[in-house]
């Protein structure tokens, strides 16, 4: 487990360092792939949530988060590694807590502690009694539910994907070696396993994307001006 994370981390760091040290104006193939991904984070995630101007300050954080999670998730479908770095709770928790610290810091820096809490927990323009109900819920949401849900979402998706792969490949092997007429079904189970493998590649990218976009949304909620 730690070995998988270490390998992924080393690969990402080395690739990034090499690419950054010999970055050219006319990019080669590897450099253009990385630039495409950065452009994707910039254009699709930051532009649509924070806006390019306000998001410039948080762009390094979000891009780092995206690459980190993408590499760790992809490790789950690389033959030989076989285990996503994010499928044990420590890493998603770390990333989620990092996000929590970033958006709270951004909000507090902008409004001060009291102003930030008021901004997040008490949206203006509601009847008075509602606030009794709303403020505790919103407060719990800010300090607990947001980062806990980020953790659980990433973790559950990666664990479920891993178990699904194991179940279908195990099923294929079990049917193939069963020695009865069930052998005839095993190709279908194998095809399903390969299909799920492809789906897992998609899920790995999607979860990195969703984690990053939610981080951006939370920062936007913390720093946005009232309309």
């Amino acid at each position, binding site marked *: 487990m730690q070995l998988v994370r270490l390998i992924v981390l080393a690969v990402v760091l080395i690739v990034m360092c090499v690419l950054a040290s010999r970055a050219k104006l006319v990019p080669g193939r590897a450099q253009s792939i990385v630039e495409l991904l950065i452009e994707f984070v910039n*254009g*699709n*995630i930051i532009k*649509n*949530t924070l806006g390019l101007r306000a998001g410039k300050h948080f762009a390094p954080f979000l891009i780092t988060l995206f690459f980190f999670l993408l590499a760790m998730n992809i490790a789950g479908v690389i033959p030989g590694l076989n285990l996503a770095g994010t499928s044990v709770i420590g890493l998603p928790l770390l990333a989620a807590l990092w996000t929590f610290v970033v958006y709270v810091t951004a909000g507090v820096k902008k409004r001060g502690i009291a102003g930030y809490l008021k901004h997040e927990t008490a949206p203006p323009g509601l009847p008075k009694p509602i606030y009794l109900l709303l403020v505790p819920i919103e407060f719990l949401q800010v300090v607990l539910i947001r980062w806990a*849900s980020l953790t*659980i*979402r990433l973790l*559950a*998706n990666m664990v*479920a994907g891993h178990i699904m792969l*194991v*179940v279908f490949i*195990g*099923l294929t*092997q*079990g049917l193939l*070696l*069963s020695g009865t007429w069930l052998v005839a079904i095993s190709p279908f189970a194998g095809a399903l396993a390969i299909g799920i493998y492809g789906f897992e590649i998609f899920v790995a990218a*999607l979860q990195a*994307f*969703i984690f990053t*976009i*939610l981080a951006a*949304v939370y920062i936007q909620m913390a720093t946005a001006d009232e309309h």
Partner: protein
Amino acid sequence: MDPMIISALEGNVASIGYGLAAIGPGIGIGIIVGKTAEATARQPELRGQLQSTMFIGIAFTEILTLLAIVTGLLFG
């Protein structure tokens, strides 16, 4: 371990609970994606923005189902 044992599904109450928990978010995600498809058909130029909104909505909805997994671990 014997692969037959791994692939054997054990029926218990927790899996029924998970099935129940998957109903609501399933309907919800269906509505979200369907409405996004409608909106994209009306205004194709807003596609990127609509898609990010769709993914945010899906993320908030699917967490309810994923919580069921945690509930199974806690009380199962």
